[in-house]
C-alpha cells in the first residue's frame, strides 16, 4: 500500500527533477514501478524460502555485505553521488551496500542475542564489534544517516534484549559526545544544526531546505493543492522524489492526507510488533523487532526532517522514496518478517 503511494508521488514529484537532471532517461515513476515489481518478486520468493530463517545464512550475508562496503570505497567500483561514495555500479544497475548491511548487521545481532542465556552477561564486546565495523566503513563513504539509523536500531534491539538501563544512560552521554565529534569533523553538519534552529536566518543558504519544505507544507492547508499540483517540486526542494517526498505529499494532499500516510506507518509498526509477539524463537522475535523498529525509526527521521522537527539529515522515507535498492531492501525485510511469522503457523 505504502509503495503504491510512493510510486504515485514519485510520478508527481520526480518528473521535473528527472527532466532537468537526467534528461533522456526513463522517468522516475516508470523505474520505480519496475523496481516495485522486482521488489514484489523478491518479496514472494523470500517468503517461500526457509533459507533466511537460518543463522548461517545471515553470518554469510553479513560478511558479504562487509565486503561490498569495502568494495564501494574502491575507486572504479564505487560510484560517487552528491559527495558520497555509496553506490556500486553493476552495468546499468546500481546498488547501495549500506542498505543491505543495515539488515545483515541487525539480523546477525538478533541471532547472537537470542543465544544469551539468562544467567549470562548480556552485554558483550562482540556485539559492539559487529556493529562498529560496518559503521566505520559507512562513515568512510560518508553516509551519516545510515550510520545513525543502524546505531539507533541496534540499540533499540539491545534495549529489548534486556541490556541494563544503566548502560543506556552512558550510551546517551556517549552519543552526545559522538555527535559533537561528528559535527566537528564536518562543518556542514554544524550549519545544518544552525539552519534547524533558525531556518529563516539564511533562507537561501544553510536554511534553504528547511525553509522550502515549510513553504511546501504550510500553504497546503487541510486538503492540499491536489494531486500533481505541487509547486515546490520545481527545483525549490532538493530531491523531491527522494528525501523530501513527504513534503510533496503534504503539499498535494494536505494535512488529512499526511495523517493517512502516518496512519499507514503506524499500522506497519503495529502489525510488525504483533508478528514479533507471535514468534516461536527468541531469535525471530529479536529479528522482527529490530527490522520493524529500524524501518519505523527511519520513517520518523525522514518525516521529522521534512516537517522541521529534526535537523536536516539525508534519510529516505521507507516504502515511498525513490530508489531501487532501498525499495527492494524494504520488501525484503517485510518478507523476512512475514516468513518468520509463517514459521509459527507451520509449526503450531
Amino acid at each position: 500500500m505504502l509503495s503504491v503511494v510512493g510510486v504515485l508521488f514519485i510520478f508527481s514529484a520526480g518528473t521535473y527533477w528527472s527532466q532537468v537532471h537526467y534528461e533522456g532517461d526513463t522517468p522516475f515513476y516508470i523505474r520505480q514501478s519496475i523496481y516495485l515489481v522486482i521488489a514484489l518478486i523478491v518479496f514472494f520468493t523470500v517468503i517461500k524460502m526457509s533459507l533466511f530463517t537460518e543463522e548461517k545464512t545471515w553470518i554469510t550475508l553479513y560478511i558479504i555485505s562487509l565486503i561490498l562496503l569495502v568494495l564501494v570505497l574502491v575507486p572504479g567500483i564505487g560510484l560517487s553521488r552528491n559527495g558520497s561514495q555509496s553506490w556500486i555500479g553493476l552495468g546499468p544497475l546500481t546498488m547501495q551496500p549500506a542498505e543491505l548491511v543495515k539488515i545483515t548487521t541487525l539480523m546477525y545481532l538478533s541471532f547472537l542475542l537470542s543465544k544469551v542465556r539468562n544467567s549470562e552477561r548480556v552485554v558483550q564486546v562482540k556485539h559492539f564489534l559487529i556493529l562498529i565495523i560496518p559503521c566505520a566503513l559507512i562513515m568512510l563513504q560518508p553516509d551519516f544517516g545510515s550510520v545513525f539509523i543502524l546505531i539507533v536500531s541496534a540499540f533499540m534491539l539491545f534495549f529489548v534484549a534486556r541490556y541494563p538501563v544503566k548502560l543506556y544512560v552512558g550510551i546517551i552521554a556517549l552519543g552526545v559526545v559522538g555527535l559533537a565529534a561528528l559535527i566537528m569533523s564536518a562543518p556542514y553538519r554544524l550549519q545544518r544544526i544552525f539552519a534547524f534552529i533558525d531556518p529563516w536566518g539564511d533562507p537561501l543558504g544553510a536554511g534553504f531546505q528547511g525553509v522550502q519544505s515549510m513553504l511546501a507544507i504550510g500553504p497546503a492547508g487541510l486538503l492540499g493543492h491536489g494531486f500533481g499540483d505541487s509547486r515546490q517540486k520545481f527545483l525549490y526542494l532538493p530531491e523531491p522524489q527522494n528525501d523530501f517526498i513527504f513534503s510533496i505529499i503534504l503539499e498535494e494532499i494536505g494535512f488529512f492526507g499526511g495523517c493517512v500516510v502516518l496512519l499507514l506507518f503506524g499500522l506497519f509498526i503495529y502489525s510488525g510488533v504483533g508478528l514479533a509477539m507471535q514468534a516461536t524463537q527468541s531469535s525471530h522475535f529479536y529479528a522482527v523487532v529490530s527490522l520493524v523498529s529500524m524501518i519505523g525509526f527511519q520513517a520518523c527521521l525522514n518525516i521529522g526532517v521534512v516537517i522541521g522537527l529534526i535537523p536536516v539529515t539525508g534519510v529516505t522515507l521507507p516504502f515511498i522514496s525513490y530508489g531501487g535498492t532501498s525499495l527492494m531492501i524494504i520488501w525484503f525485510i517485510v518478507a523476512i518478517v512475514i516468513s518468520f511469522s509463517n514459521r509459527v503457523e507451520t509449526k503450531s
Partner: protein
Amino acid sequence: MKWISSVSKKRLRLIVYAFMIFGLAVVIRLFYVQVLKHDELTELAKENWDREVPFASERGEITDRNGEIIVTNKLSPTLYFMPAQNDNIEEAARQIASVLNLDEKKLFEKMNKRAYLVKLAPEAKNISYEQAVQIQGLKIDGLYSGVDYVRHYPYGTLLSRFLGFTGYDTQGLAGIEYQYDKLLTSKSAAIRLFTDAAGNALPHVDDEWRDGEQGATVELTIDLEVQQVVERELSQAMEKYDADQALAIAMNPKTGEILGLASFPTYDPSNFTEVDQSIYNRNLPVWMTYEPGSTFKIITLSAALEEGVVNLEKDRFYDPGYTMVEGARLRCWKREGHKDETFLQVVENSCNPGFIELGQRVGPDKLMDYIHNFGFGEATGSNIPGEAKGILFSKERFGPVEHATTSFGQGISVTPIQQITAVAAAVNGGKLFTPYVVSKIVDSETGKVIHENTPQLKQQVISEDTSAQVRNALESVVANGSGRQAFRDGLRIGGKTGTAQKVQDGHYMDGNYIVSFIGFAPADDPEIIVYVAVDNPKSATVFGSTIAAPIVGQIIEDIAPTIGLAVDREGQLEKQYRWGDPITDRVPNLVGLKVDEIKKLQYPYRIEIHGEGELVVSQLPEPENILEVDDTIHLYLGNDSNKAKNNTNSGEDSNTEQNTN
C-alpha cells in the same frame, strides 16, 4: 511463550509508545504548520514563487465633489529584468543604456542583483513607445516590458500642496496620496511566468494572466470650480504684491465641508523633486500657525454678545488711541484713535482698545473658555495631514496684558483652519463643525461606497440669536467699515479683516505682516465662508482691508453661480459713501418710457440711444445694478409697445407673448 522474557515485552512496549508519541508530535506539528501558520506561510511562499511581470492596475483616482477628476493615471511602459535568464548581463545593460541614454554602470549594478525580478525604475519607467519598440527589437534575454502607470494631473499644480505626490512605484509619499495610500493602491494584474527555482521558464506550461484590482476612488468635498477661482485669485495676489506665501480656504459653514483649499507657491506633483520639501510638505491652511490679528476679534465679539455684556448700538466707547493695561500702553492701530463711537463702530473700525474693553467685560476665564469652545488650541479633526494645534496662553500665564492682547488677536497663534472653523460657528447659528475634505471613498469597480464622511457637529458654542448679531455686525464691517473692499452688490458679504505682524524667535519682524480677511455670504444665512491670508506682501499700505478683503470679495463673487448664491439678496446694508469712493447709484428702470420723457428726468448719467422708435424696449445695464455717475446707460428703441411693457412686467411675459404671436 517463555522464550520472550517479560522484560523484553515491556521494553518493546516502551519502544512502541515512543513511536506513538513521535507520531502524535508529527500530527501536532503538521496541524501547527498547515493550519495555524497556513496564512503566514502562504504569504511567504507566494513571495518565493513570485515570477510575475506586473501589469499595473490603475491607482485610485481623486475627484472633486462632482466627480470631476483631479488626479488620474497615464500609461507608462516600464522594463523588468530577470537576471537568472540572461548570461551576459553586462552586454544587456550596455544595450539598454545606449537606447535610453542611461549610465551603463549603474544600470548594470541594478540588473546584476541576486533577485528573481528587478524593476528597472525609475530609469526605465515611462519610456517612450519608440524606445520600447527599439528595446524589444534587441531581444535581450530576461528583459520584459510591463505596463505601469504614472500619476497624471490634468490641472497641473492645482491643489498640489494638499494632494501630495507619488514615487516611481506609484506609492503615495505625501499629502492625501500618502494618507489614503492603502485605499488608493491598486493590486497589479500580472503576467505570471512559471519558472523553476533557478528562474528558467518551465516547459509546456503557458504563462498565465492574473487579474488585478483598481484602487479606490477618493472623492473630495473640494469643488473644482471654486478651487480654480481661489487659486487664480491667489496667484494674482502673489504676483501683484510679490508675497512670500498665500493661502485660502473656502468652506460651507453649515456642514464643515471644505470647497477650496489653496497654498502658494504651488508645485507640479509630477516633478516634485524640483522644489524644496518645505513646499510640498507644508499644506499651509492646516500647517501654518501665526497671530490671527483682527480676524480673531470675531471670537471676542461673539463671547461678549453671548454673555450679554454689550449692546452694540446703544453702548458707546471712547478711544483715545490707546489703552493702559497694568502700566503697558496698548495702542490702537489708528494712532489718533477713533474717539467717541458705538460698539458697532468699534467692530467696524476694528478698534483695539474697544475690543480690550469687550474682553475685559467678558472676563479672562470666560474668554479663555470661549476660545477653547471655538476649537482653538487643538487640532480641528479635519484629518488633513500635517495639521498643527496652534498656541494659546496657559492659564497661569494669562495675565491682564495677555488677556488684553488676546482680545484683539495678538500674542496667540492659530491655524487658518481653526480660524475659519471658529468663525463659521460664530455666523452659522453657533454650531462648531468638524471641517472635512474627503467626502467619500468608492470602490472604483463596484461603485460601492467604502467610507463616507458626513457633517460632524462638535458643539453649540453660542446661541442662534447671538450668532445673528455677529452676522449683522460683520455685514456692517463690509458695508461701512474696514472690510469695504470686499463689498459686492447683492451678495450681502460679511467679514473681518486681519493684519498681524510676523513673529520670529519671539520678536516681531519689522515690516513683515500676514494680512488676512475672512468673509462669508449671504450675511443673513451664510452658505459660504472664505478665508484668505497673504504672507509678507510688498505694498504701500499693508492691511488686510486693502489686500485680502478685495480677494475674498472677488472669490465670493466669482463662485456665487457655482455654489448657487443669489446675486440679489434682499435686505442688504447699502455701502456707505466715503470721500474718494466713486459716487454710485442704482440704475433706474427706463424700459417702456418715451425718449423725450427720459430727457426731462435729468439723470446724472450719459445716455446713449440705439435704434429707431418711440419707446425704450430694453436697456443696459439692467435696472437695480450699481452704476457710477457719468457712466453710460444704453437704451434700445422700438415701436412694439407690447414688448416694452412685457419687459417692465416680466411676470406676465410668457402669456402675453403667446397671445400676440
